C-alpha cells in the first residue's frame, strides 16, 4: 500500500532522512517510532504530497506521490502533528466543512466515524478551540476519516494527550484497522509500539529496524537488568563507565542496564558495592521496545 524507496531529504545542510526504505502492507497498522527530530514528520509529509524528496520515490496505493499527487490528496486521510482544525468553528461545522471539501457529506459516511463521533456528539455545538486535548484528537480523526480514505496517515496523534485518551485513541485505531483500513502512524512514545502490527524504529533520519514489535524484542539477546530504588545521575554515569555495561538509561523510576555478553549480575553488584552505591534491588528484567531502541541507537 505504501512504499518508500531510497528516500533522502535535506533542509539546507541538515540531512533530515537518508536512504529510507519502508513498505507497508494493505490493512496494516504500521508505526513509525522515534524521538523528536528523527525524521518522522518529513517522511509523512512526503507521503502526503506536502514535501518533495531529494532522492528516491514514494508509492501510495501503487501511485507515485509526485506525479499522481491529486490521487493521493483525494484518497488519504491525513492528521497533521499540530491540531489543524478551525478553532473558531464548532465540532459540527468543522466536520461538515471537511466532508464537503472532500466532495462528500457527513451523512453518507457517518457509519465510518460513528463509534468515535458518538463521544463528540454532546459537544457538537462547542467551538473546536474549547475542546479538551483528547476530544480535539477525536474530532481531527473524524475529519480525516469522513471521506472514506484508503490510507489513514497520522503524525504523532497522541502527543500532548493524557494517558487515558491515548489508550482510547489507540483502541479507536485498532477498531479502524479491523474494518480493513491501512494506517500509517508516527509516535515518539515507545510504549505505543506494541499497539502496532509492525513498526519501524527511526533515529537521525535512518531506519534502525523494521519488524513486528515482538520480532524486535526477540532480537534483543543481552541480559537486561533493572536497578530500582532512589538513584542519582552519578549512578547512571558510573554504570555507563563500566566495561561490563553496554547501555544504561533511566526507565520510569528505575535504571535499565544492558550487559555485554559474558558478564553477569554478580559482577555489577560487586562493582556497585565497591563504589558504595545504595539501591533497593538489582534484578533481571524483560526487555521492551525502548530497550531495543536504545541498544540499536548506540550500536548504530
Amino acid at each position: 500500500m505504501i512504499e518508500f524507496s531510497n528516500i533522502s531529504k535535506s533542509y539546507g545542510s541538515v540531512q533530515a532522512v537518508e536512504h529510507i526504505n519502508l513498505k507497508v502492507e494493505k490493512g496494516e497498522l504500521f508505526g513509525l517510532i522515534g524521538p523528536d527530530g528523527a525524521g518522522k514528520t518529513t517522511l509523512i509529509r512526503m507521503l502526503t504530497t506536502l514535501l518533495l524528496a531529494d532522492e528516491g520515490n514514494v508509492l501510495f496505493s501503487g501511485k507515485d506521490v509526485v506525479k499522481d499527487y491529486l490521487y493521493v490528496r483525494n484518497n488519504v486521510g491525513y492528521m497533521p502533528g499540530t491540531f489543524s482544525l478551525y478553532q473558531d468553528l464548532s465540532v459540527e461545522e468543522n466536520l461538515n466543512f471537511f466532508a464537503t471539501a472532500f466532495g462528500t457529506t457527513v451523512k453518507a459516511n457517518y457509519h465510518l466515524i460513528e463509534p468515535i463521533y458518538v463521544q463528540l456528539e454532546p459537544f457538537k455545538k462547542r467551538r473546536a478551540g474549547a475542546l479538551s486535548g483528547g476530544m480535539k484528537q477525536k474530532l481531527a480523526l473524524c475529519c480525516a476519516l469522513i471521506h472514506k480514505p484508503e490510507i489513514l496517515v497520522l503524525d504523532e496523534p497522541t502527543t500532548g494527550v493524557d494517558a487515558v485518551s491515548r489508550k482510547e485513541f489507540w483502541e479507536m485505531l485498532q477498531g479502524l484497522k479491523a474494518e480493513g483500513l491501512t494506517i500509517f502512524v508516527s509516535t515518539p512514545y515507545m510504549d505505543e509500539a506494541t499497539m502496532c502490527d509492525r513498526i519501524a524504529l527511526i533515529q537521525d533520519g535512518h531506519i534502525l529496524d523494521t519488524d513486528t514489535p515482538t520480532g524486535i524484542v526477540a532480537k534483543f539477546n543481552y541480559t537486561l537488568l533493572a536497578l530500582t530504588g532512589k538513584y542519582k545521575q552519578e549512578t547512571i554515569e558510573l554504570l555507563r563507565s563500566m566495561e561490563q555495561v553496554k547501555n544504561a538509561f533511566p526507565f520510569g523510576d528505575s535504571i535499565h542496564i544492558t550487559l555485554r555478553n559474558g558478564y553477569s549480575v554478580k559482577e555489577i553488584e560487586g562493582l556497585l558495592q565497591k563504589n558504595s552505591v545504595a539501591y533497593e534491588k538489582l534484578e533481571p528484567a524483560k526487555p521492551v521496545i525502548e530497550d531495543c531502541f536504545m541498544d540499536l541507537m548506540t550500536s548504530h
Partner: protein
Amino acid sequence: MKQLITFILKEFRHIFRDVRTLVILFGMPVVQVTLFGYAITNEVKDADIVVLDKSHDYLSTRLTNKITSSGYFYLKDKAATVKEVDKLFREDAVKLAIIIPEHFAERVQEKDAHIQLLADASDPNQANILVNYTNGIINKFMFEEAGVGLPYAINTEVEMTYNPTLEGVFLFVPGVITIILMLVSALLTSIAITREKELGTMEILLVSPLKPIQIILGKVIPYMLLSFMNAMFILLMGVFIFHMPINGSIPLLLGESLLFIITALSLGILISTKAASQQVAMMVSLFALMLPTILLSGFIFPISSMPWPLQWLSMIMPPKYFIIILKGIMLQGVGLAVLWKETLVLTGMTLVFLAAGIKNFKIRLA
C-alpha cells in the same frame, strides 16, 4: 461549486466570530470618515482674530462687522495699541490681527487706504488661508460699500468649478473610500490566508481535493462582498452627511469600485503567497500599501508638486488611478469616455497581480 460555497460560508464564520476583523471591517470606515470629514479639515471656522481700529469711523466699523459676521472669524478682542496686538499674539490668543489706519473712510475716498493684516504663521497653511479669506472679504466689501468711489478697481471673479464651496470633504470621501478598500481588501485577505498557514489548517487544505483556485476564491469572495458594502456605506455617508454630489453614473461608480476592490484583493493574495506569518503579512500590507495609498496617491499631497522620482512612483500606485476615477465620476460627472485610460491601467495591474498571486500559490509546503 458546492465546495466553494461551503468554503465561503466558513470564511464568513471566521470573520463574524473575530472581533478584531469586525472592528477593522465596520468600525474603521466610520472612524475614518468622521475623522477626515470633521476633524482633519483645512477649512477655517471661527478663527480668533483681533481688530485694531485706529479710525473708528462708519466705514471701519462696517468693515469690522462684515468680517466678523462672515462665520470664518471670531472677534476675540479689540485692541487699542499695537502693543496689545503683540501681546495677544504672544499669548497665542489670536491667529490674525487686522489693523485699520486712522481716517479710514477719508483715505478710501482718496484711494490711499492701507489695511494691515498680521497673521500667526507658525502654521503657514492656516496663516495663508486666513489672509486669503480676509482679503476676499475686504475686496468684496470695498466693491459693495465703496464701489462708487472706486471706478478703476479691477474685480476678478473666481469660480471654483466642481467644488464651488471648497468643501474639504469632497476630497476626503474619495480618499477614505480608497484607504478603506485597500485596507479591508488587501490587509484582511492577506492576513486571512496567512492565518491558515500559521495555524496549520493550510496543510489539511492542501492535502484535500480542493484546488488552489477554490481556496483563493473561497478566501477572497467574502472580503469582496464586505468591501463592496463598505464602499457603498462610505458613499452613502458622503452623500447624506457631507452632501457630496454624485454627478456621474452610479452604476459606473459601483463598477469601478468593484474593479478597485479586485485590484486590492489580488495584491492581498500576492502578499499572502510570500508572507509566512500573519505578522509579516500585516507589516507588508501596512507599509507597502497603506502609506503609499495615503501619501502618494494624490489624496492629501498633490502629485504634480512632488519631486519626479515620487511622481514616477505614484504612477505604479493603483490608488492614484482610483482616486482620479472617483473624483471624475462624483465631482466632474464624467464617464468612461474620459476615464477609460485609468480604468485600463487598473485592469491591467489587477491582471498582473492576480496572475502573479496564483502562480506563486504553493501547492506544497516547501
